[in-house]
Structure formats: C-alpha cells, structure tokens
C-alpha cells in the first residue's frame, strides 16, 4: 500500500520560491497567475495494514515542521 503526503507552507508564511515562480510565469506571458505556492509531495511505500494514524505520526515527527508547514495525508 502507499500513502501520499502533501506538505505546504502555512498561509501567512512567505514563500519566496512560489513568488519567484509566479514572476517567471508572468514573464512568460501567463498574466492570469495571481499567486503561486510551492510545496512538496512525499510518497510512502508502506507495509499492508499501516494506518493513517501512523502516517500522521510520521508527519508530526519528521515529514512536516508544523511551525511553518501544514500537511495532508492521502492513503491509496
């Protein structure tokens, strides 16, 4: 089984990389882009029976820094 963890900077935390991407898109003529937030996706290959609670614990302990990041877990 697999899980996919999405980690994003929290709202209100400046994302300079997202800003740089927004500028670059604007320079390419994509005027419709009002904002960009960049995050990461972590795919976990898990032993059968691993619970979503286990993955949440992994996020809290290592995968995300909850001072600056929020995360969501998608079990597949």
């Amino acid at each position: 089984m697999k899980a996919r963890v999405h980690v994003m900077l929290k709202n209100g935390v400046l994302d300079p990389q997202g800003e740089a991407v927004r500028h670059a898109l604007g320079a390419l003529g994509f005027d419709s882009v009002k904002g960009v937030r960049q995050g990461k996706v972590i795919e976990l290959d898990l032993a059968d029976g691993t619970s979503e609670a286990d993955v949440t614990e992994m996020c809290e302990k290592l995968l995300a820094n909850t001072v600056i990041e929020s995360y969501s877990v998608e079990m597949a």
Partner: protein
Amino acid sequence: MHAAVVVFPGSNCDRDLAVAFKAAGAKVSMVWHKDTDLPDGVDIVGVPGGFSFGDYLRCGAIAANSPVCRSVAAHAGRGGYVLGICNGFQVLTETGLLPGALLRNAGLKYICRTVGLKVQTSASPFTAGYNAGDVVQIPIAHHDGNYFADDETIAMLQGEDRIAFSYTENPNGARADIAGILSENRRVLGMMPHPERAADPVHGGTDGQALFRALTSALAEV
C-alpha cells in the same frame, strides 16, 4: 570548560568551532551523530554549521532526529549549555529546543559575507562579553536563514529579552531582524552568523572571540 562538538555527515564548520573553543581555553571532544551518549563532564554542546544530511527534507530535520540529538536535548533539559551556529541553529529549532524555524532567504540567494550584528542583550553566558547595543562584524553563510515565528512568539522573545543578536541590515528577511535567540533559561543559543569565523586575526576579524571567552569564563566556575 569541556565542550563537545557534534559532527553530522555534511557538517563543515565542526573543526572551526572546535578551534574557536580551544583558543578560548576549552577542552574539546568531537561527537559523532550516531553516538548515543555525550562524553562525561560536558558543559556545553556545540552544534556546528554545514549541510547536515545534505539539507534533505528540511535543513536540520534529519539531524534533529539523530541519536546524538536525543542526548543533546537531554543535556539541555538538565540545564546544560548548547550553542547552535547556522545549520546548528536550524537543528535546534527542528528539535524544539528553540522556537520558530529558518526559512529560505527572502531573496532566494545563498549569502556569504560579513554583516553587522547588534548585540541585543548582554544578559547571557554567550553575550556577557559584549555590551548591549554593541555592533559587531560577523560572517554569515546561508541559504535558509530567514527566521520565522508567529507574532506571539516574536513578542515573547522580545518581552523576555531573548533576542541575542539582530542584523543591522536585514540580509535574509528574518522577522524582527533576528539573527540569534536564547532559550528560556538563556543556556541555549542559536544564531545564523558564524562567530567561529571571526575568532582569530587571520580571519580578518575577531569580533566573535568575546562569545567564546565569555562562555569559558562563565563555565570555568561550573
């Protein structure tokens, strides 16, 4: 004073930090990240700069979960002293020994140059060799030194006189110009600038020496 300097794969300021401690009169032991115990009688742990574990996941995140960091946290919990510089500061925020986090520099560039730092408080064993208000010249070398904490935390740090150093000209977007902060008991200091790179005349500056000397004299009596 007995100092232990932690070495992670990717640390690159560990030997510089050891030299600075020794020059101030300390006995120094190097400690590998897989070691589960600190040497007996360690007064202060130095967490050095560098790129521990390649900065994978987040700067300092993997180092913060290494075996030696559990001992460092226990040492701090017993009232032991800890100095985290640059990547070491990132490690200390990741372990939760210091509040906040270090984000990518606002200008996105890696910055390596000497900057002005204002000493915000002399009330700590790290900063007792300076006067509050002094401006010192110390090098920075980082890509992720943009200090972030929520408004409440910043107000708490200011209210409790826990900002040790601030930038005279903010190079990285850090909130409240913060370059270094103290723990509640003032025995843990994390800072992005490198005092160990301004600790010998051949470095081109010696403004960092006072930090190591103040520590040695404070801890000589422990």
